């Protein structure tokens, strides 16, 4: 059964220049025990998509479509119900644990906060014991609970974030670039901890990153976003090794080897920049940068179509599969 189901979700931001569509008709679903990787450059709308899950978008954003968390639409929930669902059903491992932790509270207190909030019956000593266990589960000694965030390294803080996300036994974890700010060795460690915990507990996970190789190694399925739309979706090894969309291919080529920083910030062979949200070109949004673009790409509207077994692509030249 799907823990999370997005149906035709769009996010539009109001700004001084008018409405800016950041996400345009995205549908995704994640089953219990499965993990979905969401890839794309910055500005592709991936964080906006996942922020709809707990309704954490700023007030200037309007969301349409349906966001079903265990079958219940998050977008129509009352505030009280939403607050009860937050962290208890779905929790978030935020990007850059650096600022996501309160700098002047001990981390143990911060991990215990959602436990106290959602499980009122839990006594203080029990909560403290659970914090210790959670820390040990992510490979930290329980005395880290007494530390302040600035006393911990980036990797340690990220582990604290993971422990915090697990605190209330959620069904779904949203990991928003949890390893981006870390150096490569630590990145692997943190990734391992996260993957292990998710697997052991049988959780569903949505993992966001701009690094396709990280996603391919950590997730069962992949969805690649460009200009607010999903352009390719399928099992992660297949999408990584044999992409059906030129953009996925370029993104995969941009990160050829894990652990080699030279490739991380110098994407190979993708000229130009992604369009600003709201200024997506006609036809296939990717055509101005696409090495395989032809004239029809600028004029024909594209949408996600099946392109193989359990695979979808929006490229006009992706393999055709009879429906």
């Amino acid at each position, binding site marked *: 059964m799907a823990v999370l189901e997005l149906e035709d979700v769009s996010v539009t931001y109001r700004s001084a220049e008018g409405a800016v569509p950041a996400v345009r008709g995205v549908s995704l679903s994640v089953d219990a025990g499965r993990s979905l990787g969401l890839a794309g450059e910055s500005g592709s709308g991936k964080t906006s998509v996942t922020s709809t899950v*707990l309704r*954490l978008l700023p007030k200037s954003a309007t969301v349409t479509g349906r966001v079903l968390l265990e079958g219940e639409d998050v977008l129509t929930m009352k*505030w009280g119900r939403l*607050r*009860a*669902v*937050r*962290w*208890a059903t779905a*929790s*978030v491992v*935020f*990007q*850059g644990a650096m*600022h*996501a*932790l*309160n*700098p*002047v*509270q001990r981390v143990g207190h911060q991990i215990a*906060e*959602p436990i106290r*909030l*959602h499980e009122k019956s839990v006594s203080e000593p029990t909560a403290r014991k659970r914090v210790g266990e959670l820390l*040990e*589960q*992510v*490979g*930290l*000694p329980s005395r*880290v609970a007494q*530390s*302040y965030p*600035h*006393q*911990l*390294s980036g*990797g*340690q803080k990220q*582990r604290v974030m993971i422990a915090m996300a697990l605190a209330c036994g959620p069904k779904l974890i949203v990991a928003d670039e949890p390893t981006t700010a870390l150096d490569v060795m630590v990145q*692997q*460690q943190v990734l*391992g*901890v996260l993957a*292990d*915990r998710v697997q*052991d507990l049988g959780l569903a996970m949505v993992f966001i990153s701009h690094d396709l190789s990280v996603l391919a190694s950590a997730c069962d399925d992949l969805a690649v976003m460009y200009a607010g739309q999903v352009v390719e979706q399928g099992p992660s090894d297949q999408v990584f090794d044999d992409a059906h969309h030129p953009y996925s291919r370029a993104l995969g080529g941009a990160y050829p080897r894990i652990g080699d920083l030279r490739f991380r910030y110098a994407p190979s062979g993708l000229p130009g920049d992604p369009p600003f949200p709201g200024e997506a070109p006609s036809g296939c949004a990717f055509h101005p940068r696409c090495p395989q673009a032809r004239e029809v790409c600028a004029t024909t509207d594209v949408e996600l179509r099946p392109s193989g077994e359990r695979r979808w692509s929006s490229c006009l030249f992706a393999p055709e599969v009879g429906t």
Partner: protein
Amino acid sequence: MSLIQDVAGGGGHDPVPGPPPLPRKDKGGKGLSPGASFALRKTGAALGTLFFVLVVNFFLFRLLPGDPIGMYTRGRNVPAEQLAQLRAELDRPILEQFLTYLRNPFSSTIDSAQFNRPVWELVTERIWPTLLLVGTAIVLASIIGVWIGIKAGWKRGKSFDKVSTGVTLTLYSMPEFWLGMILLIVFGVGVLGLPGVFPIGGISTPGVDTSSLAGWLDVAWHMVLPVTTLTLVYLAEYALVMRSSLVDEMDEDYLTTARAKGLSDKFVRRRHAVPNALLPTITLIFLNLGFTVSGAITVETVFSWPGLGLLSYEALRGPDVALLQAIFLLFSIGVVLANLVADLLYAVIDPRVRS
């Protein structure tokens, strides 16, 4: 220091090696904890400032052209032997004089020109009324000011914010003694046929025993207008500072974390945003204590409140140089010490400062 072994349970074939060692809590060095060395450093800086104040206070009056004795004794009859003593004092080498001065900056050989009394005596008896007045105003102003700042900053751009920012900016632009005079005319003297309600000056009605309950009430009654004036002026600053530091905190990621945890808006504000925004506010409040002193001087003058502020005004009108020097020294010491307390207090409440 022990290396922490991987204690991760569950996974079995956990690929994760042990986490990097925790940073040690004390950085060894001279065997001082970071807290203690922080306190020492701050105390040293405060002592440096005090020394600077002493230097300014001493040399300012001696290195200037003109006859210093004339300046100190202007407008009064000084016995010949005292004058001779003074001249002998001022004829000694300047460094020697400075050392004597350092030994006890308050026991000047020169009495107050106006009161013909040792300046130290005059100054000490005026401290308490000032502390009572300014202390009350600061407490009230910080409570009200911080409350306004939170309310305005949390709902930025809403009508409360617009009105309160307008009002506080106006109050902030106001000479505090002018506000005092206006309040005095309206509520003390009475205008346009309305009678005045409050006393127009002083700390108590003459003849009332200030140690009795009635005396306390009388003093409190006299405090209403000057305290209101100072509170209004101070709270403007506190509200503006609190608002802007809360606004600075609003974009921080840890607030999103708090919301994601399911905390209600009220708790996100109370448990996370406000405590963090209070930290810079407290420092700024203490840093700007000098501005508080300005208020005390002019407002005490307007309300004839017998504190250090009124004494400054009286000394200035002389001008009673010896007294002015003592007052300047006392105010500076007060502000420097308050700053030191603020620094130390800050280290206690913000863990980041200690390391």
